[in-house]
């Protein structure tokens, strides 16, 4: 999967899954923090992102601490997904 296309899809999926109705997907910078000063997501949103990865990419995050790294930004989410897809099955 093309990395730029993946990031575009991710932004759309994040906006839809998290009901960020006042956020345009294209306004999310690739390296903007998803939590804190960035999109301002909360702990429930973090759980929704775990569900998003499972539903759309078949990735299961069993240790929530891994989410801190994976969900830093759209870039880090894309890195994790691409690494998962490239890993030998």
């Amino acid at each position: 999967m093309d990395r730029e296309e993946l990031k575009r899809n991710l932004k759309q999926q994040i906006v839809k899954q998290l009901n960020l109705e006042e956020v345009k997907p294209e306004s999310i910078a690739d390296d903007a923090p998803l939590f804190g000063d960035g999109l301002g997501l909360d702990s429930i949103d973090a759980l929704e992102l775990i569900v998003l990865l499972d539903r759309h990419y078949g990735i299961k995050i069993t240790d929530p601490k891994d989410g801190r790294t994976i969900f830093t930004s759209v870039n880090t989410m894309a890195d994790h997904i691409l690494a998962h897809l490239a890993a030998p099955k």
Partner: protein
Amino acid sequence: MKLLATTRIQDGRLLFNDTELAHGIGEDSDFLRALYGGLGMDYPKFHKMDRYARLSLLAAEPLYRKLREEGADIVNAVGLVTVNRSASAATDTEHWEPVSRGESASPAVFVYTLPNTGAGEITIRHGAFGPSICLASEHPDCDLLLTIADDMIASQGMTHVIVGWSDIFAAPYWSGPPTLPFAGFALIGLDAGTPITPTGLQAILTPH
């Protein structure tokens, strides 16, 4: 105790003291979003709420605005009593559907599978730390509701109490014909106003 103001959401309109502040059409979510826009609200968390919490928040909004304009101590001296029939049935169902298919449940939906989310979101929105209570009953028991409001004022130091019914009439607790969301809220206090009676409150909290 006196009736100081009312809001009603019925037939696609949001009325404050019988004056229309906003209106909307469409399915539940579109309709509620239209009312949100009509009130000129800027509260992104609204979009993450379930329909019951959204309906409750919208119905309460004009009453808290009035309190704020009049300098009431919303943080410490405003009580809240909410009541409805269907509790969180609509969201319970929404939560159950993916689970029944063996899919992952949505955490954002799950957190609204409680009957007191309407009251909770109202108090969070307005930073209110006064007493609040949530009741579920077939019909509003207005004698009981006024007794609770009176206790909040007489014994708990509240200057005002908001009493509200909000329901989206969801299965399985609603077996009647399809009914649009309805909310009726009353602001009660000791200021100048019309004396509030159980019959008067019933008329506010009941669709008609």
